């Protein structure tokens, strides 16, 4: 190595009492490609160092919480070790599956095998309602994760078993995409084993089980929803596999089958990849306090009507208490020796072990035997640092819920620190085993976690071409798996998309109203000023963006600065239950609920939109800042709309957004024009209305004169080429509804198509001059009022029809509803 190239390793310290993955700087064969690249001038040896290889540069702009950030330097292992791990962990998966089958079946391990009763009955994650559950093909655990660490003697040991709903599969995939993009040459050069075949084999297996369980049965990912800390994983996997991501409320038990409520009615579900805790999955037979369960799920699962991965109750083995029993269980159940040792544990449910833990407390990590399900629940330090004891033995805690485990000096592996130097830290690997048609397979990759001074980081695990036997299923990218039509769109998601479309449009309307208000307030003469203020305020009240009390207060204020300050406090007060802030929050909430339907770009734009008012640069009460803020919001909304129009496939998802948008835009236009029924029509006033409807430029280019009411009505109501006109909204709604499911009637037109057609004809036949000039004695434009009112009824009815047909599924109920 040249002097320059050795620089990044200058600070690499060989750990004193631990195994060094880099073999004390001698760089063993399996590390050579990685280290050669990272110390080269393309890697960290050059000046300046490439930014994308600096640890902090890989923290992507993700809104979702990730447990750890990603280090660019991959982790790697030699062939022979990987084979040992593969054999050891698939054996362990098989063993844990057999134990689970026995515990939920004949329980011979207790009666005959001598397992102590407290191990099962004192275990809160043993779910009695799943008793005598005989899983199809005796598959209870389809996805397992193992945390392993290497002790100073070079031996890998299992630190923790994850059997409930292991997390990390989505994160591994994401790590791989990021790391692979950052170092494509190294990735190629090492011949890094790809993950796609493994994921595909697992997805295929789930899909096969679904089809076996229920004809036409689909596979879905059951998630606790966007509030769950690992939701990004569920969404990521859903997108990758092409499986819908559903919550409890999306599902219903009908007859003896599980059904997904979709846009097209109920659809059978044959298998679930479960990311929700089992006890929360059924409020009838499991935890009665659960808010996102599926009533009756446990009952149909037990009778084999739905295949759940992993089986409800699989968390029974997700603890340290079973560990010390595994060697003997392996011999009795599999007639084999346990290949991969576990961390030494002493479960205090037995008198001798309890005594040992009491005597050796200072050299052990003492904690709860039956731990709670959390991702990366045990920190790396807790495995090695005696000062980090979870708790000393409690007189008030039952002995069977206490455990002591040995402390271990974990092996160190290299990572890139914030100064661009390669240093080392204690390391734990999380590896995944999945059930496939060929039995259990170890994923050729995984997550390496390293403890650093700045907290834990994660690393992608790369295995060279010669290191792993490829999984024999053909290498097809999972995204090419036959995707189900998006008619499986869950009703709840459909509802969210519909409202997202409405809120986006409502937001745009409101921002235009505010912007007009601010600019007219600044520019307008005093007479106009009051009138404009009243109009805009009335509109905002109609839009639910202001309360009546606030409106009254605001219309009485006179000085510009005071107005600006008052407006500011109403609009952007996070405490306020009306106003822009609330609307932006709603948009963000809905967008995050349908995130798996959005592209990464669209999602980032949604986030930027929501954060617009929170930026530091806005000075409270400054009119110029308010205008700039409104401009920025309009810009971002337009960008987002462009993104949706240009980049979203014309699926049901897009149609629902469009439906929401057109309905809302139509209703907004009607509200604006309602002002014309009783008002005089000065030109400033008409320009305000044109501005609110974003039609000022169109008007000027078309008429090139001072606005007249007739022209204005023509443009806003009847001009089919103006995308802001009423007739435009009606024709778009007709087009969208014609493509919706469940809206086709055998006898001619459906109800929604009928009312839209009537509205269309009324508009075509309307006469702008009469609408403008027929004025009653009370001073109202009666013709105009009639047309607007009928349109308003049409849009209201359409909204109700959409809700009843697609979201509430009242069509499954007798017509009395």
């Amino acid at each position, binding site marked *: 190595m040249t002097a320059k190239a050795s620089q990044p390793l200058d600070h690499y310290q060989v750990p004193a009492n631990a195994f060094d993955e880099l073999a004390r700087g001698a760089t063993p064969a399996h590390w050579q490609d990685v280290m050669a690249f990272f110390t080269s001038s393309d890697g960290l040896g050059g000046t300046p160092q490439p930014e994308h290889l600096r640890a902090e540069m890989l923290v992507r702009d993700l809104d979702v919480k990730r447990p750890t950030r990603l280090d660019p330097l991959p982790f790697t292992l030699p062939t022979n070790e990987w084979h040992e791990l593969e054999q050891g962990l698939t054996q362990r998966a098989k063993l844990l599956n057999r134990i689970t089958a026995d515990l939920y079946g004949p329980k011979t391990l207790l009666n005959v095998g001598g397992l102590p009763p407290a191990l099962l*009955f004192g275990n809160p994650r043993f779910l009695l309602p799943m008793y005598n559950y005989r899983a199809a093909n005796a598959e209870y655990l389809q996805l397992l994760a193992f945390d392993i660490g290497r002790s100073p003697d070079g031996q890998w040991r299992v630190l923790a078993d994850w059997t409930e709903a292991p997390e990390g599969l989505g994160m591994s995939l994401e790590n791989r995409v990021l790391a692979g993009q950052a170092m494509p040459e190294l990735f190629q050069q090492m011949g890094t084993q790809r993950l796609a075949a493994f994921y595909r084999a697992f997805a295929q297996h789930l899909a096969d089980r679904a089809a076996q369980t229920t004809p036409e049965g689909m596979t879905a990912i059951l998630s606790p929803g966007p509030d769950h800390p690992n939701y990004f994983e569920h969404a990521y996997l859903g997108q990758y596999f092409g499986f819908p991501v559903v919550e409890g409320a999306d599902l219903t038990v009908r007859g003896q089958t599980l059904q997904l409520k979709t846009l097209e009615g109920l659809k059978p579900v044959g298998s679930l990849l479960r990311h929700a805790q089992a006890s929360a999955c059924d409020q009838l037979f499991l935890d009665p306090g659960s808010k996102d369960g599926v009533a009756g799920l446990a009952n149909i699962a037990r009778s084999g009507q739905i295949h759940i991965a992993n089986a409800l109750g699989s968390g029974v083995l997700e603890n340290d208490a079973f560990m010390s029993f595994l060697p003997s269980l392996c011999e009795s159940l599999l007639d084999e020796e346990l290949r991969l040792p576990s961390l030494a544990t002493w479960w205090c449910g037995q008198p001798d072990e309890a005594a040992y833990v009491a005597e050796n407390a200072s050299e052990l990590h003492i904690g709860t035997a039956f731990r709670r399900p959390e991702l990366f629940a045990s920190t790396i330090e807790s495995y090695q640092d005696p000062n980090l004891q979870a708790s000393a033995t409690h007189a008030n805690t039952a002995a069977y819920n206490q455990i002591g485990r040995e402390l271990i000096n974990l092996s160190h592996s290299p990572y890139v620190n914030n100064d661009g130097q390669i240093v080392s830290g204690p390391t734990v690997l999380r590896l995944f085993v999945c059930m496939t048609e060929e039995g259990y397979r170890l994923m050729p990759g995984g997550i390496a976690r390293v403890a650093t001074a700045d907290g834990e980081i994660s690393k992608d695990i790369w295995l060279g071409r010669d290191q792993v036997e490829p999984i024999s299923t053909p290498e097809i990218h999972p995204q090419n798996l036959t995707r189900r039509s998006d008619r499986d769109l869950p009703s709840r998601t459909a509802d969210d998309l519909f409202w997202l479309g409405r809120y986006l449009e409502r937001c745009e309307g409101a921002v235009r109203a505010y912007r007009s208000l601010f600019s007219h307030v600044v520019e307008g003469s005093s007479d106009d000023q009051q009138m404009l203020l009243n109009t805009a305020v009335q509109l905002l009240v109609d839009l639910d963006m202001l309360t009546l009390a606030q409106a009254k207060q605001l219309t009485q204020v006179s000085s510009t600065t005071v107005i600006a300050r008052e407006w500011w406090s109403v609009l952007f007060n996070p405490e306020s239950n009306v106003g822009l802030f609330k609307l932006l929050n709603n948009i963000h909430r809905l967008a995050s609920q349908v995130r798996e339907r959005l592209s990464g770009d669209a999602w980032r734009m949604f986030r930027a939109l929501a954060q617009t008012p929170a930026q530091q640069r806005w000075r409270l009460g400054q009119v110029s800042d308010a205008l700039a803020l409104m401009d920025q919001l309009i810009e971002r909304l337009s960008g987002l709309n462009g993104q949706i129009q240009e980049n979203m496939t014309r699926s049901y998802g897009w149609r629902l957004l469009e439906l929401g948008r057109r309905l809302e835009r139509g209703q907004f236009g009607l509200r604006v024009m309602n002002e014309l029924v009783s008002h005089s029509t000065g030109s400033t006033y008409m320009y305000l209305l044109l501005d609110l409807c974003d039609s000022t430029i169109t008007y000027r280019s078309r008429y090139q004169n001072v606005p007249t009411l007739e022209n204005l009505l023509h443009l806003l109501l009847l001009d089919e080429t103006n995308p802001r006109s009423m007739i435009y909204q009606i024709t778009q709604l007709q087009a969208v509804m014609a493509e919706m499911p469940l809206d086709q009637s055998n006898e001619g037109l459906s109800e929604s198509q009928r009312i839209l057609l009537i509205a269309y004809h009324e508009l075509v036949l309307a006469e702008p001059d009469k609408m403008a000039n027929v004025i009653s004695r009370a001073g109202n434009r009666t013709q105009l009022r009639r047309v607007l009112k009928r349109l308003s009824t049409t849009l209201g009815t359409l909204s109700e029809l959409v809700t009843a047909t697609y979201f509430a599924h009242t069509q499954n*109920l007798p017509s009395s509803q």
Partner: protein
Amino acid sequence: MKYSVKHCTEFDYGMPVISAQQVLRLKPREMFGRQTLLQHDINLSIEGTEIQEIQDYFGNTVHEVRLHTPHKKLRIDSECLVDVIRRDDFMLDLSPTWESVVKAMEVPQSSEHWQAAQFCYPSRHIDVDAAREFAQQFIEPEMPVLRLVLAINQYIHNEFAYTGGVTNVYTEVSEIIAKRIGVCQDFAHVAIATIRALGLPARYVSGYILSQIPGQPTLIGAEASHAWISVFCPKFGWIDFDPTNDLITSEQHITLGWGRDYSDIAPTRGSILGGGNQALKVDVRVRPAA
């Protein structure tokens, strides 16, 4: 002694319920030598209801009911004829010491003991750790186990005030012990937590009680569902104690079923879509029958 029981449950909703699922545990158990079920009928006020009868883990009969008809009222009528057989095949002082029962539960030697052993641990409503300290006052070395349980039973009856409306199904054992107040369900939960804290097996029993026996005081818990406890003693089997009435049950208690605590054997548990505010009315009539 034969009884006829009419148990009527009425739900009243503020808004229509779009669909509902209910789990009913309203069919009295057959108990060899102790209780015979002569007749049982269950009726729901809404037609087109799917009803499925299943056995739960503990052997109780469960009716799973699915309603897909919109409704604002639901009435569930359960009627039965039961023969309860007087029980006098045990003597408190001849029961084994409580220490020996703890040992037997740690290393069960028969399937009956294995069955009992699972009632020694915490469950959803039974926070055993919360009763650990409270339990210490009742133990004396070599005490016959049923004497020990009787002492706990009497203590709860004497020291805890029976008051409705203060607690609910989510009230925790620690709070009931601290406030010394509650209803039959709370007293059963405290007694079970105390017994389990000592390493002994105890289960929760749901059922009915006859209120009026000529010449005897009125018992609490009639005209509603009642709850008490059952304790396993290797020599005599399961013996039932009623902490609310300071009784060892004999022939006034009609057993519906049992579980680890209320959540395993609640008479009704439902999950509804829609409904708004709901009002629940329960009416129980227990009458001696010929």
